[in-house]
């Protein structure tokens, strides 16, 4: 009987180790990437944010109203010119796939977007505050992680207002069209 116990003991260790090896501890939910390839070989992908439903946090310099209502912005002078917005971001099909931040500073010529897609990686995009003739703001991918680490390219960010919404409520969508190429190592 003692031999059976020892056999069970060894089996227990092996089964526990095998289970930990075979089954993932972290199982991240994924959505298919909706990427199209342009004639020059670059990858085109679009994301969008529904406003106000995808808002998580909004703080704009010089405005008393904060979102959410219980948000307490620090009183430090150095933080007063900073604007921060947090959103959930959607893919082309409208499925939420990640989170994004939009940071700005009073007087700056560009603002920064950080897009974080848990299953794929993060993208840091700097966008010009001055809009182009078609109303879009042009930006560049400055840095990225994991899937986006080796990519460089441009982004067009556009605010599309929803005119059918109630007066006094800001409603619309922020559209982002990314156009990236894989950067080849210079070695």
């Amino acid at each position, binding site marked *: 009987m003692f031999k059976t116990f020892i*056999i069970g*003991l060894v089996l227990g260790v092996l089964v526990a180790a095998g289970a930990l090896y075979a089954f993932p501890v972290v*199982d991240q939910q994924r959505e298919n990437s909706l990427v199209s390839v342009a004639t020059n070989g670059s990858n085109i992908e679009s994301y969008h944010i529904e406003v106000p439903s995808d808002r998580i946090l909004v703080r704009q310099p010089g405005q008393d109203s904060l979102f959410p209502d219980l948000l307490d912005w620090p009183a430090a002078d150095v933080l007063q010119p900073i604007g921060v917005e947090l959103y959930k971001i959607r893919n082309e099909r409208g499925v939420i796939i990640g989170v994004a931040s939009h940071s700005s500073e009073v007087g700056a010529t560009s603002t920064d977007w950080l897009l974080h897609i848990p299953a794929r990686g993060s993208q840091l995009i700097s966008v010009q505050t001055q809009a182009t003739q078609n109303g879009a703001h042009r930006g560049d991918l400055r840095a990225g992680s994991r899937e986006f680490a080796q990519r460089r390219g441009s982004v067009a960010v556009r605010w599309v207002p929803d005119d059918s919404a109630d007066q006094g409520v800001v409603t619309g969508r922020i559209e982002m069209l990314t156009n990236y190429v894989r950067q080849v190592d210079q070695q």
Partner: protein
Amino acid sequence: MMKYAISLLLGLLCGAALFVIGLLYNPFIADRTVSPLSVSSKAVVSLSYTAVPAKTIAFTNSGEARLQPHPKDIRLLREDTLQLTDVMVTEMRNARGQTAGIGLKFSSRSERTNLLRGEALVDSAWYVHLPGRGSLFVEQSENYWPFIQKVMVPAYRNSANSWKGKWTGDLSAGPGALGVARVTGVGGSLLGQSMAAVESLSVQAYSTDEGPVFAEGRLLIEIPSDDAKATD
């Protein structure tokens, strides 16, 4: 026959328990004691932040985790794709304890987690904005295994479900050489600069119900010497 089956079952349970104990107290998985940046000849800037969600400007997650969102009316990340993700907005303080800027951190539990190798990984991205000076993007994998071993497990073993003491450890585990985080300057005088960073955590009190009760995080960033005076 029955007694052999019971004996085998008991053996299996004891074996599994032995494996878990061996995993948690594995002496071959050592905590990194020296920060890779401690041997750097370049200037290092320190930015600290509170690691207690209730003391941040904002913190949100799925709402089902131990760490409670802050403020209470912030929207939760309930979607399936965001279940393993945390978002934090916090003040960043310089070495003198003065507010230097703001930090936004997105972190998601990593599928590369391998507990057999002592890796409880989190993929995270920081955006640090230092007004008038520039912005930084920090990408890294963090390993929370030493924190789990030294703080969380003792807290669960404690009858009061809490831990008090002093634990400090590096979280950064790549993607840079020697396990440092990769930093890119994205604005101001730091634009285009490639740098390295190490994020560390210092915990003095932890509760199994609330998570960290007294804890501070720190980003040590190795930056070009010309920018060090301006940022400190």
